[in-house]
């Protein structure tokens, strides 16, 4: 009995206080800063005015696509550019949120969750269900050589629908791409920041110039002409592949 009093009870009390201290100590300031909050989807002042302007230039409608917010929300942004562009149904979604997690593990001091969506969707007609994917070269993915050296040195080409060499060369000169045709959607995913962060580190990613927006996460000033030129290139590709959906 004496042993329990002398040893086990103080130990239990100590563990209890450690858990209490761990749970309720001051929340980390670092937790509130999502690594992606300064990305191309940011709801910064410049982003708030630039994306509507881009929509106007492309003849698309702009929608505020933020999810319903609450007091647990740390970051919430959402822009949607929709409409018909050169006869193709285009849906550009740039947004994301970060919020305090509903559940925090017992020993963790703080938890938050986030989701970022940055994609350009083009509705196509693909009755044969052909597919292709252009992604950054990854040693884990089995892919075939396309014969275009500037492309093969950077990317993996997957799928059964070969795209013309001209486009492979174009992607090669861009230096980065994440494009996929699956079902009736051609989807460009803007994972440039995340890909650069994974391969070159965060500091380089923050300052790296996105080849589509022609700006970095640090300074989000869109080069409208470049974005429109890129969208035009993808619409050209849809036409060349003969998968344009009749509107």
């Amino acid at each position, binding site marked *: 009995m004496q042993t329990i009093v002398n040893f086990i009870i103080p130990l239990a009390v100590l563990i209890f206080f450690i858990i209490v201290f761990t749970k309720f100590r001051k929340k980390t300031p*670092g937790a509130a*800063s999502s690594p992606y909050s300064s990305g191309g989807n940011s709801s910064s002042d410049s982003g708030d005015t630039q994306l509507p302007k881009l929509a106007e230039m492309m003849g698309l409608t702009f929608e505020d696509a933020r999810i319903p917010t609450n007091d647990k929300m740390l970051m919430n942004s959402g822009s949607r550019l929709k409409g018909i562009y050169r006869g193709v149904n285009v849906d550009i979604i740039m947004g994301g949120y970060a919020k305090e997690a509903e559940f925090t593990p017992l020993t963790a001091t703080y938890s938050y969750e*986030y*989701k970022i969506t940055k994609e350009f969707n083009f509705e196509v007609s693909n009755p044969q269900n052909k597919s292709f994917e252009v992604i950054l070269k*990854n040693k884990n993915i*089995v892919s075939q050589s396309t014969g275009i050296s500037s492309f093969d040195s950077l990317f993996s080409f997957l799928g059964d629908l070969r795209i013309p060499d001209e486009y492979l060369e174009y992607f090669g000169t861009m230096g980065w791409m994440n494009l*996929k045709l699956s079902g009736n959607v051609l989807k460009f995913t803007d994972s440039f920041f995340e890909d650069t*962060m994974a391969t070159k580190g965060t500091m380089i990613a923050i300052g790296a110039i996105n080849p589509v927006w022609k700006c970095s996460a640090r300074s989000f000033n869109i080069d409208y002409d470049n974005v429109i030129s890129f969208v035009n290139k993808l619409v050209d590709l849809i036409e060349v592949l003969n998968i344009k959906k009749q509107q």
Partner: protein
Amino acid sequence: MTPETVIEKVQNNKPENGWAIFKYNLKYAISRILFRGLLFCVVLVMAAAFSVSALKTHQTSFILFTLVSVLFILVSVLSIVIVIWELFYSKKSMIVLTNEGVVKNFKNSLEYFPFDCITNLNATNQYSDSTPAITRRRDQYIDFRDKRTGKSINLVKNRIFGNPEPIFNILKSRITGDSFVSVRNDFYNN
């Protein structure tokens, strides 16, 4: 194609175009064995030294400390045995993201999850406290829910199949609809 055929094709070095293959990470296994072995040795030596000195003075403390030490050593040995058990099946252990689904073979247990049965995909990062999320990442888990059974499945825990991030990114791009839910960051004290 059956999951068994997928594993067989990878083992025979005949994977199909588009497959993403993540083999069992031997380096990580060895590092786990070495770390746990080292911890085991340190605790063993400390326990032995303390026991000898405590025996002369407090018999109750000696018994308690010995019990705790034995328990700790047993847990350490068990954790090492688990990794060694993994190593026995290491040649066949892998995750393959085919064009249709996920094949996971781990500890001689083969599972297959078609992409359209995967929902609530979630990655959990664990960070040291007081550091920005972009700097120091400790571990990462990848979980999802199997629509067929409703069960939560842990696909990856830490670096057992190498860096989990590429697995998550490729899986996220291959699953259909809005099955990707979120990334979660948990912060812990060092």
